Structures are given as C-alpha cells and as structure tokens.
C-alpha cells in the first residue's frame, strides 16, 4: 500500500545536540545499532514516562532480564520470547521477539503446557511460597548495613580477628543490594505473565460473548478485595480512629506541619505517645508504598514523606466524628462482585458457554491475588529499600566531595556507582584523597542538563517497521499495544485539541477545577471538590480520594489498582491519558467522563490569561 504511514526508523532518531556524552554513558548494549532498523520498537511510556536518570535504568534492565527469562526459558511461552530494550535521549524503547516458525511454536507449546500448567495447578501453594521468598529477600535487604567509613577501624575488628576492613563492606553491601534487586525482579515475573494470561483468557471470552462489555466490568468481576495494596489506606483510617479514641484528634488539621504535629504529640503525654506507637506499627511495613509505580528513584514512599497519609487524616477524623462509617464494606463488595459474575452468566445463550465461563472465572479468581498482591512487595516495599540504600551511598559519596548532594548519585549508572565506591575504598585505604571529586561534578551537571533537555522533546510512540499483526501476548497484556492502536498513533493530527483520551476507569461525569499535582509535596493545594490531575495514580493516592471529585492520570490501565479503588470510592476517573499533566493547566475547568475515558478542557482562554 502506497499510502501506508510508518514510524521513523531508529537510525533516523538523532541524539539531541549537547547531550551526546550523556547518551553515550548508557551501556553499549542499550544503544541502537543499524540492524535495529529492521525491527519494530515502541516507547515504553507506560512504565517510563519521563527521561531516565542513568541509575534508574537499572529498573529496565533488571525487569527485562527477568521477564524474558520466564517467557523465553522457564514457562516457554509458545509465540514469544523476551523483550529487548534500547535507550535514546533518555527514553526506553522496547521490542518483542516473536516466535513465528510453526515447528518452533509447536515445540514450545509442549514445554509450555508442561510447565505453565504446573504453576496453574499448584498456584496457591507456589504463591504462598512466593510470599515467603519475598519476605526473606526484604529481610535480607533490611539487614544490609548503612555504608560508612570510620576514621579508625572499630576495635572489634582487632578483637575478633575479623581480618576484613570497613571499606570492603561498601562494595559488599552495594553488590548485595544490586543482586537483591535483580532477584526481586525474577520473583516479580515468576507468576505475572501466567496471571495476566489467565485473566486475559476470561477477558477474551467476555469480549466475544458480550462485544460491548467494558473493560471495567470484566476487571470488577475478577478483582480481589483483600489485596495488600489496599492496606496502607486502611492503616490511615485506623490511625484516624485511634486519634479520636485517644482524644488527640485535635492535633490534625489541613496545612499542618507534620514535624510540629509529631513533636506536639510526643509532648502531649501518654495518649500522644500511644498514637505515635500506632503510627510506627502502621509505617512498618504498610507505609512502604511509593506514590508512583516504583520505577523512578524520586517516587518516594509514604515513610520517606508522610504528606500523603497526613493529608488524609483530618478528613477521615471529621468523618469518624460525624459518625460516618469509613470502613471498606468488604461483605458488600464481595457480594456485588459475585452478583456481577452471576448476572453476566445468566445472559449467556448456551449451557456450554456457561460451563466455559465457570471454568474461566474460576481460573481468573485463582490467579488474581498474585496480580494484585505482588506490587506491594516488589514495586513498593523492596524498591523503596533499594533506592534508599543507594541514597545512603549517595550521601556518603557527597560527604566525600564526589558531588553536591546525595540525589546526584542517580546521575551515575550502576557501573559508575560501583567505580565511585571503589575509588572511595581506595582513597580510604591509601589515605590519599579520592579522584571522584575532580571527575564526577562536571558529569553530574552535564547529565542533569541532558535530562532537562530530553524532557523538552516529544517522543515518537514507536519506531521502525510496523508488523502486520501483534501476536505477542506479553506486549498485548502488559502494554495494551495492538495493531489498532498503532494505526491510531499513525493517524495523528486529527484529534480534538481540547480532548484527551484515556482508559475509562470509573464511570461518572464531573466538571470542576483541575489541580495539576506533580509531586506529593503539592497535595496540600487540593481543595474539596477539585479534580486531581497527576502523572501516576495508584492506590497509595486513595487517602485523598475523599477530597476530590474526579481523578485523571497520565499513566495507568483500566485493570490497574487505581481503577478498582476509584470505583470503590465511586470516584469518576480516567487513567492513562498520556499527557494530562502537560496539556491541562492548573486551575482550568475540565470535564471528566469516566465512562467514556475522555477529559475535555473547557476554558482554554481563562488559562491563557493566567499564564
């Protein structure tokens, strides 16, 4: 076809002038090569919507090293192998490796049924075992010492005849922490594709039996109610209840300074300290949730920044004092889900379909606790520990003049961090100053500038040759990429400028004032009835749902936790709009249609006046 549009070839994408050195610093194995022009790549804006810091790239390689292993060689998915990734201008492009030879597919089908079916058959046992593995991995990371270099080796080294000096612990800790992070991602993908696959099988059946069924309705039928990820918000509610019980609720109000409140509670006598003890037990482990998806070091956890849970406390306290029930109505939620499942079943025409439906929903319910539950352990709890440990190294290096502040460590690749650690070890051992302080500051500055530059440039959603069909279950499941939406990407320029499209997460139409919140620090700006516009929403934002009238996010799918939580709160939501935080200006009036997945900007002119 002569008029077929296509995406630019990788070789035609130029490194943005001035950022060449920063680009070259990414490992050789993620640089595009001429052969890559033969393949199809798409921008993984779902997981990596912002230009990557050099260190944060470890998330991409650790995740793909694990994902691919399970797809290619452990479960042996018949039609696909793993994911290759490339980085240009700080953006992560990924490409699938489809299996097309019928003989190879047949061979892989045999292996797949032997292996994957074993997982499905033993799902509950293996998942229980998985949780134990994850808890052990987390405990291991928690025991890693804080990296530090004493002036003199502690006398215990002498008395115990340890025979290893403190600088060695730096390398040891760093490597163990890295190893743990790579291992965590293997655990992450042990069940994930199989879980999604079983869910997608049910999904596919529903779409064929009910061509106009919404994605939401299907995910509501499958959703578990007791996933770990709901727990943090439950803990905030518990703390609100405790504050009322202990009579210390007067301390919490909008615009409070958290440190001041904590200090005041400590001074308040027994009840104040009692509440602080409750806070501690909530924090560990339940506040180990970050406010993003866990893919960037700056998606900090509630524990690192208490703004989110504290922003929710006054509202919950008011509700409790007004006699409102703020508990999740578990029995009702489960009953509603079961009703939904049986109502759809009734609409099926044949007994055979009803039997198939029963088989599929049973399997979907079996696998879904993992799909919902794993994130708390992997993307939240472990990832927080990991980035915070790297921060500790950042602090030590900054202290020794390698760069200005601890966060700068994330401008180094993980190989470079190791080299800096070794530089520091050498310096401590030799008694000479390290080389790093002369080497890194300029590089950090250059990379910081590169990230700023990269973020100013738009990114092609895909590169290279468009395949005829996308028959890669991993890509369809994890990224929702189909031939249809590739065609939509190619037919750009026809969309209404004032309308954004995303996934319909929770029905309802709301008009209101947009509050564009780019970091958790800003949540104090939210006023009752505002529409929250943010990059990523996940259940860790649930505590402030009581305050807002609708939510819009750049990232997220219709089966995301966010969608489930939004529905529980009856909060109209559109997720995965791609660019809401860029296109919507703070204070603009917008209309959110959570049933259709559209967001409309209503008063363009007013925003321009403000600007």
């Amino acid at each position, binding site marked *: 076809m002569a008029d077929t549009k296509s995406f630019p070839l990788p070789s035609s994408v130029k490194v943005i002038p001035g950022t060449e050195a920063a680009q070259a610093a990414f490992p050789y194995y993620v640089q595009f090569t001429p052969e890559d022009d033969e393949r199809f790549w798409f921008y993984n804006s779902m997981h990596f919507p912002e230009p990557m810091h050099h260190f944060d790239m470890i998330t991409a390689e650790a995740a793909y090293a694990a994902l691919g292993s399970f797809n290619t060689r452990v479960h042996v*998915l*018949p*039609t696909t192998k793993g994911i290759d990734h490339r980085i240009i201008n700080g953006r992560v492009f990924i490409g699938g490796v489809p299996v097309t030879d019928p003989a190879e*597919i047949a061979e892989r*089908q045999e292996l*797949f*049924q032997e292996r*994957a*079916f074993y997982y*499905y*058959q033993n799902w509950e046992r293996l998942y229980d075992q998985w949780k134990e593995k994850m808890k052990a991995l987390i405990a291991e990371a928690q025991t890693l010492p804080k990296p530090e270099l004493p002036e003199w080796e502690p006398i215990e080294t002498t008395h115990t005849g340890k025979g290893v000096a403190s600088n060695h612990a730096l390398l040891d800790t760093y490597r163990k922490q890295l190893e743990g992070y790579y291992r965590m991602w293997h655990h992450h993908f042990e069940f994930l594709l*199989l879980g999604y*696959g*079983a869910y*997608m*099988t049910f999904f*596919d*059946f529903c779409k*064929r*039996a*009910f*061509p*106009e*069924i*919404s994605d*939401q*309705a299907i995910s*509501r039928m499958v959703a578990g109610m007791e996933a770990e990820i709901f727990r943090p918000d439950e803990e905030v509610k518990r703390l609100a209840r405790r504050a009322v019980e202990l009579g210390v609720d007067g301390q919490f109000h909008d615009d409070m300074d958290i440190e001041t409140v904590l200090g005041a509670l400590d001074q308040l006598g027994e009840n104040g300290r009692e509440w602080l003890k409750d806070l501690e037990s909530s924090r560990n482990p339940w506040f180990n949730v970050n406010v993003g998806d866990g893919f960037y070091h700056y998606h900090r956890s509630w524990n690192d920044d208490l703004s989110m849970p504290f922003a929710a406390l006054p509202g919950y306290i008011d509700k409790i004092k007004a006699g409102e029930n703020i508990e999740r109505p578990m029995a009702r939620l489960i009953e509603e889900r079961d009703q*939904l499942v049986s*109502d*759809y079943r009734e*609409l*099926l*025409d*044949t007994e*055979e*379909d009803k*039997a*198939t439906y*029963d*088989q*599929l929903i*049973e*399997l979907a319910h079996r696998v879904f606790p993992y799909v919902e539950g794993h994130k708390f352990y992997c993307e939240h709890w472990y990832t927080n520990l990991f980035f915070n440990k790297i921060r500790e190294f950042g602090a030590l290096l900054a202290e020794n003049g390698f760069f200005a502040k601890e966060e700068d460590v994330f401008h180094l690749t993980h190989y470079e961090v190791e080299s800096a650690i070794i530089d520091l070890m050498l310096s401590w051992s030799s008694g000479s100053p390290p080389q790093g302080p002369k080497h890194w500051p300029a590089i950090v500055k250059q990379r910081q500038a590169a990230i700023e530059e990269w973020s100013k440039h738009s990114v092609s959603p895909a590169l290279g040759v468009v395949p005829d*069909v996308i*028959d890669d*279950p991993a890509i369809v*499941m994890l990224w929702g990429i189909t031939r249809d939406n590739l065609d939509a990407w190619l037919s750009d320029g026809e969309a209404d400028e004032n309308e954004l499209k995303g996934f*319909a997460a929770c*029905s309802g*139409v709301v008009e209101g004032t947009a509050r564009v919140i780019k970091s958790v620090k800003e949540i104090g700006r939210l006023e009752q009835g505002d529409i929250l516009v943010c990059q990523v929403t996940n259940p860790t934002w649930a505590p402030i749902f009581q305050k807002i009238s609708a939510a819009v996010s750049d990232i997220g799918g219709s089966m995301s936790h966010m969608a489930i939580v939004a529905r529980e709160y009856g909060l109209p939501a559109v997720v995965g709009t791609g660019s809401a935080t860029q296109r919507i200006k703070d204070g603009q009036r917008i209309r959110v*249609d959570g*049933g*259709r997945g559209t967001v409309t900007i209503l008063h363009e002119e007013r925003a321009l006046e403000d600007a």
Partner: protein
Amino acid sequence: MVNRNTLIAWFREVGIDDRPTVGGKGGSLGELIKAGIPVPPGCVVTTRAFELFLDTLEARAPVRARVMEVDAGDLGAVTELSEELRRRVVEEPLPASVDEAILRAHAELCGGGQVPVAIRSSATTEDAEDASFAGLQDTFLWVLTPEETVTRVRECWGSLYSTESITYRRKHGLPEDGVAMAVVIQQMVDARCAGVMFTRSPLTGDKSVITIEGAPGLGSAVVSGEVTPDRWVVGKITGEISARDISDKHAKQVPAEQGGIQEVELQGEERTAPCLTDDELMRLREIGRKVERHYGRPQDIEWAVDKSGDILLLQSRPETVWSAKDKVAPVKPPEENPLRHVMTIFGGKK
C-alpha cells in the same frame, strides 16, 4: 383471557395470550401492567368489534371475496379496490353496539373530559408486526374528541385494505378469513421527552448493554426519524454509561391546539443539551431490565418522560433482528482440562 365476545378490553384485563382478540400491541401493554410497569391507561377495541363491523359491511356488499379475487400484480386494480374498501370502512355506519362501546370506553378513559388519546392499530399476527408489512403501523396522536376517536379507529381498520396490505396478503396467499385488526385507545402523555430503548445492542446484538435513544417532545419524532435523537449505551448489569452521543435536535413534535401534532423548531439548551439525566437513564435501565425479565427475552421499547418526570412505557415488543440470528453454537465450548483455555491467549493465532 378476554371473552371472545368482548368489544372493549382494558389493558389490566389482557395479556399476550389475548393476541388473537387484542393484537400484539394491546396484549403487550397488558403484560407491562402485569409486570408492574407504569403505562398510560387505555383499552383495546377488540377484533370482535371489527368482525361485527365487517359482517355489516359484507351484508351490504362483498369485501373479502373482492380482495381474494384481485390480481396482486395489477397495481391499478389493487389501488382502486383499496380506495373503495377504505372509504367504506370509514364511511359506512357502524353497528350500534360497536359505536356505543367505543364511545362508552372513551368516556370512561377520559372521565368525560377532554383528555387527549392516541389511537394505534394492534395487529394480531407476528407477520403483521414486522415493520416491512407496511401500512399496518397506523398511529393517530393527540385525538381530542369521542367522535374523532371513532373515526380514527375506523381508519386503523381501513389500513388492512391499504394497497401494501392487500398486495402482501395476496402475494403470500393469506386467507382473508383470518384478517382482523384490534385498535388501542390510550391516554396520551404530554412528554417532556420520549424515545426508544433496546435491551440489547442493535449494533452487535450484545445482551449486556441497553441502548437508549431520546429527544424532546413526543416520541413520534424519534420513531419516524424526523429528529436525530440523543443516544446512550448503558451497561445492563453495571449501569455504566459507555456512550453518550448528544445530537443537535433541530425540532420537536408537540400537541397541536386543535388536536394532532405539530413540529416546533428548537433553540438553545433544549436543542443541544442531553434530553435525559443520568438518573433518568438509570431508571429507564431498571424498567428495561424488568420488562426483559418479564418476557424472558430482549425487548424493543417505546418510552416517554412526562412533565413531572415520571417514566411511562408506550409499547414493548420482542427484539427481532438479532434474536433471529442468535446462533446455537457456543462462543467457546468447555474443556476437559480447563487450563487448556489459556492457549487462546498463549497458543498463537490459529
């Protein structure tokens, strides 16, 4: 069941089994009342009334025999016969019992006052309900007087002798003995807005969604296609509103002062705003589900919202297009090993 000799049957007395005497429309309105659905009050002039009239017509000059004889291929002859018979149905005297029964029913329905009514033909056979059987779907709106009511009932009967009806019956070799027509007389709703509702998708046949179409004023504007209605797709089970197509509704049909209806051009809000609120959509959905459950199959429903916001149904009939296509083959048969189902996702395109 209604007595075979009854001339007037009230909605509350009839059901779908009474189709031979009250027609499909009349029977379904009775069923709706049984299902507890609000329906504007009314009655049916039964086929017995028509048959009595036909007997008096036959006594004067043949009717059925003339139709049996006519050559369906001779359009001129059919047209000539149609005009003659329709004139007779409208003009020749009614048996006194029939005339009185209709007037008495009208008085009872309207409490002696001038309550506007709708007169609709109510055919007795499935065939006749098919929209393609043109000429039988006569409806007269906003009829104000008892005398006009009688005239309109006659016109409905007369439609049995339209050129299309006669041609259809002759081409299909249908006997004239079985031909009869009931007529519905029903209080009219001065609708704020009205429209239709399908309890499955007209596009895909999906039984899990309800499609609602509506526009300001009387439903006739929507049914006749004079106005592009607003359109919503609502999850039957979930209540999600997955599509909202709000159209530019250039006009509405409203009652005319002297009876009948007139078209009024629309401006402003009424023209551009959705004619139903989300709450009304949810109430319509509930009603749709109730009717469907009552009949045990998807329905094609006409509804109206009156000036006080109450929803009333004007008609419900089984959805026919997709029901005819419903396949016996399952979407996917069950597997001996349920795990094999996952191969639809992992196994690759066949």
